[in-house]
């Protein structure tokens, strides 16, 4: 039995693979066998590790020759395995996180029954006959003529469903489902459910009203109520970090008004609930965009200020500084950006709109000419007063964007795309610290700067860096990791990474590099022209060694084109493509025949040597 079962497995797998290669219908059988092979290969890694430990422990316990090396091997193996498997020092994977959300465990079946949504339609069959996307598989079912979705659909799920099939009918059904499978109005954008990981999520801080609304969805279900309670507690957890100094004129940004507290006496920031990436950005961006420095008194004053902290700038530094400042932004660019956004916008039509157009055309017997986009809005131009406001902003960039937007709206018409363009433009302007850092490094590349000048140019960016770090620390402290063990074992800076970079990599590279030394020694001592075969081998080695370098080409470059075939680089190609290929093919064909014969013996059970000896 001990020998029969492995022999049967080997024989059957081998024949399945053979048959699947020649008969297309059985291709899937071969695939299955190959998958089992891959699984066993993964298991072999574990067996290999176990075997390595067994052999070396035996050697150590017997104090056999070289047992010290075995001890080093075992220690290195165990240390690497522990650090790698334990993901010691690795942060949770970023893409697995739900920043700004509190999480609570909840099975799909415990979601309130009222949060199951249906739309009319049929789940189509994919062109490749694959099942519906994995991320909706648990929640999406066909119920008669309706498609039913349990829970609230997420944008990623909508995208996956839309990509499943590109028929207009299906896309319209997905749109209808995306509209239907939403939480109650008051909880929209806050509550969510991740079916793949059985997690109920809540974005931001949960209010008492939110808690009551959520509990009311299924007050009879204790599991649901407990999950909501857990979310409530977690979303009101307080996290605190220290700060060294607040940015000048610091005000708590709008998105953090209800959750951030600043204790100036203790120099601490306290955050209630998790922090979203948007809130983090709002907290970080406390430094005003730098105003333009056009040629004139303000730029001269700036250059003089640099000069006050050290020696005057040289010609090359001055030219660089002027070039960089000339390339900065100005009020006219801002006006153009906002004006251009006032053009009518092309937006994509929904699948429902396209489907209606198609149906209408078919009813009238026409061929539908479906244009995928439609134009919305009218041309909106900035008036003189609005342009003046933008020019004034370029002089005083401390003015908050919200206030500027309000003033522009009061001075004339301002469309939503224009507001977006304005916000985008301002968010892309460097801060004074960033601009001065760029200038500092550009000036250093063109001449010296005193330490005073460097400090003058870098002080702002240092302050900004410290504040960004504080905001980042609060973001991390307030975050509730989802899958804390999900990080990459080889993350840069982790202990495993250090082992790889500074132990494994140099050791293996050194081992390989040592070959050059041994080959050189062997070439001197053993590569002798003792007989005809050795002379042929020696000649070939000369040609190949020289032909693979520039030296070979140079040595025979004087040969005329009529005998170009004798040039060393061409001789190398001939040897490799003719003699080497012919010889290798002959050997390969021989090996292939041998493998076929041996395989047949193994598959038919004639050769059982791979099963070990009978005594085992």
């Amino acid at each position, binding site marked *: 039995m001990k020998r029969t079962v492995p022999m049967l497995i080997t024989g059957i797998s081998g024949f399945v693979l053979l048959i699947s290669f020649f008969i297309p219908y059985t291709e899937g059988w071969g695939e299955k066998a190959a998958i089992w092979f891959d699984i066993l290969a993964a298991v072999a890694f574990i067996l290999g590790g176990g075997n390595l430990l067994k052999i070396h422990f035996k050697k150590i316990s017997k104090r056999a020759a070289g047992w010290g090396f075995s001890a080093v091997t075992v220690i290195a193996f165990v240390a690497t395995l522990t650090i790698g498997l334990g993901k010691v020092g690795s942060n949770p994977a970023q893409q697995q996180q739900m920043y700004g959300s509190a999480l609570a465990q909840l099975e799909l079946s415990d979601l309130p029954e009222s949060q199951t949504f249906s739309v009319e339609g049929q789940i189509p069959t994919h062109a490749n006959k694959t099942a519906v996307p994995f991320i909706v598989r648990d929640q999406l079912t066909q119920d008669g003529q309706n498609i039913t979705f349990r829970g609230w659909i997420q944008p990623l799920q909508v995208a996956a469903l839309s990509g499943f099939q590109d028929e207009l009918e299906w896309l319209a059904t997905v749109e209808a489902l995306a509209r239907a499978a939403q939480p109650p109005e008051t909880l929209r954008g806050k509550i969510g459910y991740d079916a793949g990981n059985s997690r109920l999520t809540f974005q931001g801080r949960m209010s008492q009203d939110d808690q009551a609304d959520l509990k009311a969805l299924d007050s009879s279900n204790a599991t649901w109520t407990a999950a909501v309670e857990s979310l409530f507690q977690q979303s009101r957890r307080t996290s605190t970090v220290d700060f060294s100094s607040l940015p000048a004129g610091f005000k708590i940004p709008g998105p953090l008004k209800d959750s951030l507290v600043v204790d100036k006496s203790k120099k601490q920031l306290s955050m209630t609930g998790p922090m979203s990436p948007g809130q983090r950005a709002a907290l970080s961006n406390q430094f005003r965009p730098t105003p333009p420095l056009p040629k004139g008194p303000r730029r001269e004053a700036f250059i003089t200020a640099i000069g006050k902290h050290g020696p005057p700038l040289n010609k090359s530094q001055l030219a660089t500084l002027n070039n960089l400042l000339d390339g900065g932004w100005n009020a006219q660019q801002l006006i153009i950006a906002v004006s251009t956004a006032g053009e009518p916008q092309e937006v994509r039509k929904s699948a429902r709109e396209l489907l209606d157009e198609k149906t209408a055309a078919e009813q009238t017997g026409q061929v539908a000419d479906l244009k995928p986009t439609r134009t919305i809005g009218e041309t909106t131009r900035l008036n003189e007063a609005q342009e003046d406001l933008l020019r004034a902003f370029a002089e005083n960039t401390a003015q908050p964007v919200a206030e500027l937007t309000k003033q522009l709206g009061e001075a004339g018409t301002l469309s939503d795309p224009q507001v977006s363009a304005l916000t985008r433009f301002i968010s892309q302007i460097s801060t004074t610290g960033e601009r001065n850092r760029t200038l500092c490094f550009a000036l250093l590349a063109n001449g010296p700067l005193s330490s005073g000048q460097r400090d003058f140019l870098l002080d702002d960016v240092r302050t900004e860096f410290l504040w960004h770090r504080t905001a980042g620390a609060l973001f991390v402290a307030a975050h509730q990791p989802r899958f804390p063990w999900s990080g*990459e074992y*080889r993350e840069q800076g982790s202990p495993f990474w250090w082992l790889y970079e500074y132990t494994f990599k140099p050791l293996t590279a050194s081992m390989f590099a040592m070959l050059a*030394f041994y*080959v050189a020694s062997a070439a001197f001592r053993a*590569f002798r022209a003792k007989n005809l075969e050795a002379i042929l081998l020696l000649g070939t080695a000369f040609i190949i060694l020289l032909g*693979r370098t520039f030296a070979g080409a140079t040595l025979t470059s004087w040969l005329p084109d009529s005998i170009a075939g004798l040039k060393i680089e061409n001789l190398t190609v001939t040897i490799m493509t003719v003699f080497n290929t012919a010889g290798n093919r002959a050997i390969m064909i021989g090996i292939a025949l041998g493998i076929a014969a041996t395989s047949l013996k193994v598959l038919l059970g004639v050769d059982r040597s791979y099963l070990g000896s009978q005594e085992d």
Partner: protein
Amino acid sequence: MYHFLSTLDRRWIFLLMGAAVTIPILLELQFPEEATSLAHAVFNEIEQLEEGDPVLLAFDYDPASEGELGPMATAFVRHCCEKKLKIYFIALWPVGPQMIDDSINRVIKTDFPDMVYGEDYVNLGFKPGNEGVIKVIVTDLKQLYSTDDRGTDLDQIPMCRDLVNIQSMDLVAEVSAGYPGVKEWVQYAATPYPDQIRLVAGCTGVGAPLLYPYMPEQLKGLLGAIKGAAEYEKLVVDRYDREAGREPDLKYLEGKRRMGPQLVAHILMVVLIVVGNIVFFVGRSREGTNS
């Protein structure tokens, strides 16, 4: 002299070899390269692809052979990025993912920051099973790869959502230092699906002679060792830097830089063989005279 050479301590040879490699590195000795037809074949296979075409880059090597294969891996990635191809990275060697990370950090994140992970390139990572993995993914990739190297579901990655198998790749470029490597890709991917899978490869110097028999049908082009890398990177640099009138970044000329020490080391090897044979023949003639 004869006595000195015939009893020469091997450490002198080690010292000579050390000097032959070190001095050209310190002096930054470089020599011009001319691309052979094999390098042209590899270059043309990528060059003829259209923007957005999918390519599979399989990196099956480790730090031991990085010195020989790193430059060609860099050149492959750079060429694919310049052509705006969709790049799928894969590895059959346990440390392959680190080699992929190195290339992504060196080329994509530095010089092509606009490329988006999941839309323009994706790292599928390592799977154990050697040629068994190839055999499965040529017909059904998602049987083995349900997530990428970071653990993200392939259905959530835009460029993987509709990916069924690697027959849909317009090209497979394999950089390999041994087993599993080019030979397995030839046997289990390019040979059973000659009309669907086009394969080019880069390999170590000792591996190249074994792969010539597969050309040009099963293997469309082959870069052999650092010489092949230097030739290929010359073609890429000429096309995307020199034609644009700009100086190439030095990391894209790493193969050419490494050819300097190789040339001197090869010449030393030739000299050692010659001297070794002179010692051998002089010794034999003296033995004959004595007897």
